């Protein structure tokens, strides 16, 4: 009933299906990730390019330091944070599209530029499809968050989950088929 739940208790409660804890968890992580990005901006004085992966790792290190021994394991933290990142990125994409001139911090993928990025409304459809997927196959949904929205490599995800890289890739391919189905189908409707 206490209001100042630690991250670990929030995660535990969320895993037991406590929706209000899940909400609280997301808002904590959201403000944490936001905070780091804003601070980077303030420090550099100019819009910075901060990779999602970097952001995530930094949040993990800072929060782990703060919360000490009660901090949950890295894999669980990443799972939740990745979901939050997805939300951040979708917001951000909308914002960036609308933005003509600076001021906002800039999230940039560490990877190369590409042309065929989904537009924002596809992004939100993907996000909805992921929510659906999370109900039946949570690890698949989380994987997409980590890979697509946070830019973690297969190797990183594999070590996070203690499974082989090949398995990660196979799961990824499967999730992608699922998402493609959902998104395309929805578009057709």
């Amino acid at each position, binding site marked *: 009933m206490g209001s100042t739940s630690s991250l670990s208790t929030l995660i535990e409660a969320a895993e*037991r299906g406590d929706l209000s804890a899940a909400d609280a968890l997301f808002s904590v992580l959201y403000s944490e990730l936001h905070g780091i990005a804003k601070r980077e901006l303030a420090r550099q004085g100019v819009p910075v390019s901060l990779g999602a992966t970097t952001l995530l790792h930094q949040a993990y290190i800072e929060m782990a330091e703060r919360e000490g021994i009660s901090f949950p394991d890295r894999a669980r933290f990443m799972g939740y944070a990745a979901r939050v990142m997805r939300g951040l990125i979708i917001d951000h994409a909308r914002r960036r599209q609308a933005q*003509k001139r600076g001021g906002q911090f800039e999230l940039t993928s560490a990877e190369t530029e590409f042309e065929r*990025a989904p537009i924002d409304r596809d992004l939100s459809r993907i996000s909805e499809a992921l929510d659906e997927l999370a109900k039946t196959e949570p690890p698949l949904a989380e994987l997409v968050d980590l890979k697509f929205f946070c830019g973690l490599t297969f190797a990183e995800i594999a070590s996070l989950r203690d499974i082989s890289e090949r398995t990660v890739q196979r799961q990824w391919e499967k999730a992608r088929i699922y998402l493609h189905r959902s998104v395309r*189908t929805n578009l057709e409707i």
Partner: protein
Amino acid sequence: MSTLSPGQWQEISPYLDHALSLSEEERGVWLQSFRLEKPELAEVLQQLLEEHRVLADEHFLERMPIRVASGLSMLDQKIGAYSLISLIGQGGMGSVWLAERSDGRFERRVAVKFLRFAMTSGVGAERFKREGKILGQLTHPHIAELMDAGVTPNGEAYLVLEYVEGLPIDQYCDQQKLDVDARIRLFLDVVSAVAHAHANLIVHRDIKPSNVMVRSDGQVKLLDFGIAKLLAEDTNPAATLLTVEGRAAMTPQFAAPEQVTGESITTATDVYALGVVLYLLLTGQHPAGHRLHSAAELVKAVIESEPPHPSDATASAEAKELAEKRASTPEKLRRQLRGDLNTIVGKTLKKIPAERYGSATALADDLRRYLKHEPISARPDTLTYRAAKFARRNRTVVILTATAILLVIGSLSAGLYVANRERRIAERRFAEVRQLSNKFIALDNDIRGLPGSTQVRMRIVTDSLQYLNSLSRGAPIDQDLALEIAYAYVRVAHAQGDPTSPNLGQFADAEASLNNAARFVDPILAKDPQNQRALFITTTIAHDRINLADTRGDRVEELRDAREAASLVERFMSTRPVAVNDLYSMRYFYVNIAGAFYTGREFDKVIRYSQRALDIALPGSRANDLRGAILANLAAAQWQSGDFDGALKTARESIEFQQAEAAGGHASLRINLANAYDLEGMILGRQDAEPSLGRTREALADFQKALDIAEDLANKDSADYLGRHNIAVFGLEVGNILRHKDPKKAREVYEHSLARIREAKPNASTQRDEAELLAGSSYALRWLGRENDAKQFLDRALELLHAAQRYPADKVEPMSDTYDALRGQADDYAETGQTAKAVGAYQQLLDKIVAWGPDPRNDLRDATCISRTWTALADLLRRARRPEEAGRLEAQRTDLWNHWNGKLRNAQALLRQSLSQVASRKAFLGVSQH
């Protein structure tokens, strides 16, 4: 391409896994054999695998989405004729963007307000549409204008609003160092904007400085009609739902009492909020002060506390700074505010809407009169008015009830509303209702000590429980919800009948609630013996059962519960870490466990558990919490062991601690203090009862103090049982002393106490209280010559004890209610010349006491009681000319006190006390016989 249902997906998922794990070549072979096995599934699988190949070629989802190709941006879609520039703000409802006209025709900047994705359905969208509708009706130079509204091709609703670049009004005034008159002039513009809205039957409902912006050119703009209310729309069900949301969305610090309590919202609500803003502009302070920590405190401040006059509010540590920002000095500022401005602000902040200015215009008129040094229309409060206000405070109870019920009902109807809609929304509602219910349970804890809150607490907790319970039906409940429900039941039990704090006296119901709580918590504790929360609740239940057994007078059960509770407290203390509040609870439980052993005459255990209570270390400022109550138990044990001087010393120490604790006004702590006075009184000189120091005059003063506290608490809470019970207990002591000196005055005390206990809903405990008072009063009546009335009182007393299942009884505990009534009857026979009947009655009483199993050679109370009974009986036997029997009793008595003489140094004094009781009655008899 067709959709895959979740069922289909689940069916195909393992095969897809397998197929993907194979190489291109292997896959073809496997798929062929699979086709023979499950042709339909293989068909779908093949489609999916082809899709997979295309997606891999396309690198679908392989790169992060962040660098979005600009060609597809929202910019090209335009928001009406505007393009977005940057994000201004983001909140729960959506985002607000700075935008500019993109066709170059006008150089005008606007604010575009988007509704967040998640809000695009239901109440959020409804609210959004209303804001558009409301603003569309308003055109005023001081209201931010609605320029356009629409929906983007993506389906996002938006409003285009006049963009106001500036500062919130309070910051603006401070920055510009505006003096009082300039502030009022600026404020008048806000009032005119509000008046315009009111003229269009629109109430803003969320007026606060951050919604009143001042541009750099000094123009004021009222913003954000997001939760505004159309007064004409009350019957619309959607609007009702919106009102619930609106209530949740309002800003509590600026809310009017009727907003907090859920009473009807009118234009007077905005007048109040304007008053708060004006107060803030003039004084730099919030009228409720800034030290509001909890929901209960805020509720209490808004609906109960009278704010200080603005002129008094400026006398703070920052007085000089505050005055400087108003181009003034502290002294000058105080003078400026005193008088008319105090009166005007006071009238806007009246608790009752009808007492405020009738309209924003009327407020504006008075402010203009002030600026022109003309007489204002508002009248200052007179002294009688202030006094009347004080009396009105009891209204809090009613209002709190209304709040709790409205909010909870609101949340439920909102819950039902969505029940038929998407499951996801229903789940969110589930979480909300649950959260709200738990919030109310916490609120109950906050206001528990607030005198006058019993009935409200009951409503709050039962409503909350009902909702938690409704959540538990239909769905399998998780452990946390089960614990929440269990705790809610415990809180319900407390309001129904926790004998240690104000309660409704519904002890049987409380018992049932505790059993219900146990039903939820027991399985959890059985599965997980270390679950701290479950253990806490179970310990609380065991503790509460002690008190309920005590109220029933069930000594056996009481001791069993006390032992159970003691072992649970120990078990709880072995868990780690224990929060400070829980430590306090454990100390508190030990106090009542010790108390139970005191009632059970096990004084060594009283000392043991009192020591354990003290061993629970509380940090710093709380180290002495409950120390007074612990000392009271120790004093009682000392007293009963015959150490009167030591007991008196400990009791006085206890009072000192408790006076400090009770100073805060917390009801339970004040009850503890009253009990401590009662204890000191009993040690000093309780009449006709246990041994004492015989200092009845001092004792009387103590009993009177205890009685005063009980009266005060009972007066503050018309529903509270405990206050009335305590009046009966303390009133009896006062009456018992007074009747020996002034039977008439004693009668008044007895009668008054009887009247107060009869205000409570009858239960076994009130019946016992009443019986004792009637028995005590019978002496006074008889000594006033009203022998028939005395007899009736005694008959009635026995009837009540019968109803409470205390009589008839084969066994009677010494000094108990039944003992008092039976002795009263025997004395009645004795004093009205019916010696033979009196002998019989006393003989029977003695037999019943002996049957109870007293321990007169070790227990001083039992010794005194039996000794007195012997004395009275011996006296009667002599009158009946049966001296031999009398002599035998007297010899037994001498033997008993000789035994005690070896144990106590004041045994002889006790014997004399025992004799003097009979002597004093004889003296009275002598008077009435003349």
